[in-house]
């Protein structure tokens, strides 16, 4: 099967650089899949779970905020953070989720726009982490 070159790059270094069969990512308009020889494409990436398949094995990553570019049979993700599901500390993510929920509730009560946006982003990240960790366990 034809493969596509996947690269996931974060400010703290490249996370993945590999030939893979299929990539699924949380795009602006919802999840999308990319196979080999996809046409040139550029999309923003939401916080969520990125997955790819290689040698019949699924891999899951939590990604947050960035964009992706497909060209010349390469797909490059530039994201603020990316973590493999199996490397995620579930306990810490749970705590982060609870903290974010509490903050969000507080921000809603006081109707603070900025804090609300921050809490929402933190909550999304925590949930994406938990989901990626769960998917990786299966």
């Amino acid at each position, binding site marked *: 099967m034809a493969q596509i070159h996947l690269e996931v790059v974060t400010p*703290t270094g490249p996370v993945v650089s590999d030939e893979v069969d299929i990539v699924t990512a949380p795009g602006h308009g919802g999840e*999308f899949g990319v196979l080999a020889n996809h*046409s040139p494409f550029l*999309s923003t990436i939401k916080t969520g779970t990125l997955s790819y398949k290689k040698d019949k094995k699924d891999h899951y990553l939590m990604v947050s905020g*960035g964009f992706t570019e497909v060209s010349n049979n390469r797909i490059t993700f530039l994201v603020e953070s990316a973590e493999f599901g199996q490397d995620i500390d579930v306990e810490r993510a749970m705590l982060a989720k609870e903290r974010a929920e509490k903050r969000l509730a507080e921000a809603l009560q006081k109707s603070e726009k900025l804090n609300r946006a921050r809490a929402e982003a933190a909550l999304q990240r925590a949930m994406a982490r938990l989901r990626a960790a769960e998917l990786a366990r299966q």
Partner: protein
Amino acid sequence: MPGLKDVKDKIEGVKKTSQITQAMNMVASAKLRGAQEKMEKFRPYNQKFAAAMSNLSAGMDAATLPLMEVRDVKTVELVIVTSDRGLCGSFNSNIISTAEKMMHRYEAEGKKVSLICVGKKGAQYFRKTGKVRAGFEDIMGTFQMFNAREISMNIAENFMAGDSDEVQVVYGKFHSVAVQKPEVLHLLPIRPVEAAEEDEKTEISGAYTFEPEPGEIMEVLLPLYMNVQIYHAMLEVGASEHAARMTAMDNATSACKDMIHELTQLYNKARQAAITSELMDIVGGAEALKG
């Protein structure tokens, strides 16, 4: 002639100082390695980001995006990135004086200046001017992308509210272990990036499918681009700080060595003088006994 004990104490003191400066030198060189590694890891992200930006912004209508809006400049915001700690030679004072010159120049042109201080040294210096709008202190040691995001969000909000019309970043660029120079970077309004290679550009702009529209993508990308710039400046300052400290501590250590050498000579002279005068006493006493 100073007393023997005084000189000896002083030598001990200088020796201890040189031990400290030597240790600081070693710590700085270890930290420099870490900072350089951090820079190295950031490079691919930075390069790819710049490439994507230039692809996208080519042929974009800049005026529609709030972060690219060019206005009459009434207020200039300077983001001054320094280190949190001192003892690194003239590194921070170079940045501060560059920023101060810019400040005076803008004010001479009748523009208002507001300051954002990243790093404690700059914040301490500029506090008395009363122009500091926000300070971010004690973050230069272990900062991450989210620290840069917080700073750039603050700057962007102020800019979009119309409270600043232009933003410049003053930071210390890391050229090499021996050379670090203050550098000024234009941050806002974001200028459309000139496409680097002509052939690269033409290949891209036509054939791409964008999701969402390029304009909307830019709205997401521009704040990220600001984060990247701020983060980059912080990385440069981080590495420069340690390099400057290494040099400063190296100089201090060799100055200590010189001082120890001089003091040892002084000590030997004083000791010799004491021996001579004791001998004189003994000889004088013996002569007197002979009678």
